[in-house]
């Protein structure tokens, strides 16, 4: 048989272009070639005896590279071609290094469990190993966290740390699908752990039943590959972003409000951080958070699933992702769009001259307007004090500044309803001779309302209901029916 050797492989066949080999099949030709030209063995086969990817074998124009065709008889006139395959791909840009990937192995059960991933060319064994090698922190086991935690556990993330200080409450169950009625009053991290362990017992689950603060966050996230922000407030968002930048960890951000959601990736390599997009939070109380504004049940599942999907893409190193972008979704009218987020070179955190160098030396309560300023002292009543005034029948004015949907859930009797935006021009509805108590859900928007009234020149005594109506829940009036 005539065997043609490609110029690219000829160095291993003593520079011969064409050889005459006595053989009846491809297998015999390969054997004879290796006997005749010992150098060719290592160019044809790898250390496991498998034909190398770049070798292609043709009989005439018929591709016979696959080993199951090596024993087919050859017809006399055919020339056998040994020619190269060239192929390749763009480098995978995974946040998990090759060396960590190589340390991972799978047992038979895992091969079966992750079969649907393994059959995807973009994931395969290598991608699944990266998923197993990854160590991910999920901040918040609420609505977004429910989707993120469950999907990342199901996908096979090896180490999952969940940080949440809260306990499961009844009003969580409308959207926080990781918790059930049986979990009421349990720490959220405990029910999250049960769920994860039920999905896959071999996942390393780390529960942090603690509130993220400036002095603990670096210890909590340091050494992990990825942080997923599933929190619902600005303080946590800035805290997490800043700590991620300072620890050099990429961040998958997600947020929901009513019918709208946002997802973005920050601090990935030279990408922008959350502060590049929003240098400072809105004034405290002005924008209700999800817990005050509400959201439709599946929205957190949609947004959280996208966060989990982005996290997996970063781990595997495939596709396009939302670094330098912000995906915005409107679930009511089914609009979505992607905004570009530029890196801000004057960003106080990741810009060319950063002014923030540590999580500790930054006052988040002050920055997010959570700290009451000292100049304007806002007096307030505790729920007990207010209850006592009501019980005594004192002449007082109660102003409810909550949104209509909040009042629909819990009406506060005998209160004047004035939205914050109308307070300044409707101040004459208040009697400056009487004590006026402003109420809202959590006692934060009421502070904003009092400041607004004062700025508008209202001179009467103003009081804040400390902790809002949330704190009032456990107060029992002696004549309950008449009041609440």
């Amino acid at each position: 048989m005539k065997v043609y050797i490609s110029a690219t492989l000829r160095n291993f066949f003593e520079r011969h272009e064409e050889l005459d080999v006595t053989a009846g099949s491809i297998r015999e030709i390969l054997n004879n070639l290796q006997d005749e030209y010992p150098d060719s063995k290592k160019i044809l086969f790898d250390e496991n005896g498998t034909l190398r990817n770049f070798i292609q074998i043709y009989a005439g124009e018929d591709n016979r590279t696959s080993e199951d065709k090596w024993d087919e008889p050859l017809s006399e006139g055919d020339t056998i071609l040994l020619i190269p395959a060239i192929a390749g791909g763009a480098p995978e840009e995974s946040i998990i290094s090759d060396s960590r990937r190589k340390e991972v192995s799978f047992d038979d059960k895992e091969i079966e469990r992750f079969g649907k991933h393994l059959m995807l060319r973009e994931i395969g064994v290598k991608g699944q190993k990266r998923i197993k090698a990854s160590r991910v922190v999920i901040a918040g086991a609420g609505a977004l966290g429910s989707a993120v935690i469950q999907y990342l556990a199901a996908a096979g993330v090896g180490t999952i740390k969940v940080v949440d200080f809260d306990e499961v409450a009844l009003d969580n169950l409308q959207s926080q699908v990781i918790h059930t009625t049986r979990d009421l009053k349990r720490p959220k991290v405990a029910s999250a752990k049960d769920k994860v362990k039920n999905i896959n017992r071999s996942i390393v689950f780390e529960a942090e039943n603690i509130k993220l603060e400036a002095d603990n966050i670096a210890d909590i996230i340091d050494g992990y590959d990825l942080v997923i922000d599933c929190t619902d407030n600005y303080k946590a968002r800035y805290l997490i972003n800043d700590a991620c930048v300072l620890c050099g960890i990429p961040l998958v951000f997600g947020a929901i409000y009513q019918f709208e959601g946002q997802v973005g990736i920050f601090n990935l390599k030279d990408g922008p951080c959350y502060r590049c997009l929003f240098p400072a939070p809105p004034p405290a109380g002005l924008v209700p958070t999800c817990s005050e504004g509400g959201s439709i049940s599946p929205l957190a599942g949609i947004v959280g699933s996208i966060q989990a999907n982005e996290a997996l893409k970063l781990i595997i190193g495939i596709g396009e992702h939302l670094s330098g972008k912000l995906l915005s979704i409107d679930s009511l009218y089914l609009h979505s769009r992607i905004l570009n987020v530029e890196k801000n070179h004057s960003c106080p955190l990741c810009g060319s001259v950063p002014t923030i160098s540590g999580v500790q030396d930054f006052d988040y309560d002050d920055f997010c307007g959570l700290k009451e300023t000292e100049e304007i002292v806002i007096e307030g009543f505790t729920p007990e004090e207010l209850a006592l005034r009501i019980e005594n029948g004192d002449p007082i004015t109660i102003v409810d500044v909550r949104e209509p949907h909040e009042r629909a859930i819990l009406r506060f009797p005998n209160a004047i309803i004035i939205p914050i935006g109308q307070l300044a021009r409707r101040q004459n509805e208040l009697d400056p001779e009487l004590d006026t108590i402003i109420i809202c859900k959590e006692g934060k928007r009421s502070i904003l309302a009092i400041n607004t009234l004062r700025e508008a020149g209202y001179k009467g005594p103003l009081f804040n209901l400390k902790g809002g109506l949330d704190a009032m829940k456990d107060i029992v009036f002696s004549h309950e029916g008449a009041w609440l």
Partner: protein
Amino acid sequence: MCKELFIDLKAYRQMERQVKRAYPYEACGVMLGHENRVSDVYILENVEDKIIRHAYFSADPLAILKAEKEAKERGLSVTGFYHSHPDRAAGPSEKDREYMIPGMQYVILSVNENGVAGIKGYSKPDTEDVIETVDIEMTVHR
């Protein structure tokens, strides 16, 4: 082992045009010349599935055979292969490394919407999984 690759500017311009035209998909071709001097290129078609062509390439082996036979008629030989990485760095991926034939020269061009953003050369001295970088120099022949 030559650690330097000389590419004729005209041949480079051809590569550049091809990879820019193919963007956002990968493009590939054969480098022709002598030893570590590239004087011409032979454009290959990327026959990968369209849905993954932005990140993968492969060429028909028979087209490579045709390239090498044509080169021989013109007194040239195949010195190696080049391909592009749209929107990615010019480093070899794991798959690129697996397909490197020992002794051949490989050139990777990083390309984005503005054009070629980087060019790097590599070769695999033997069948071990060790890759050497190769310096690229452009040459002008009048």
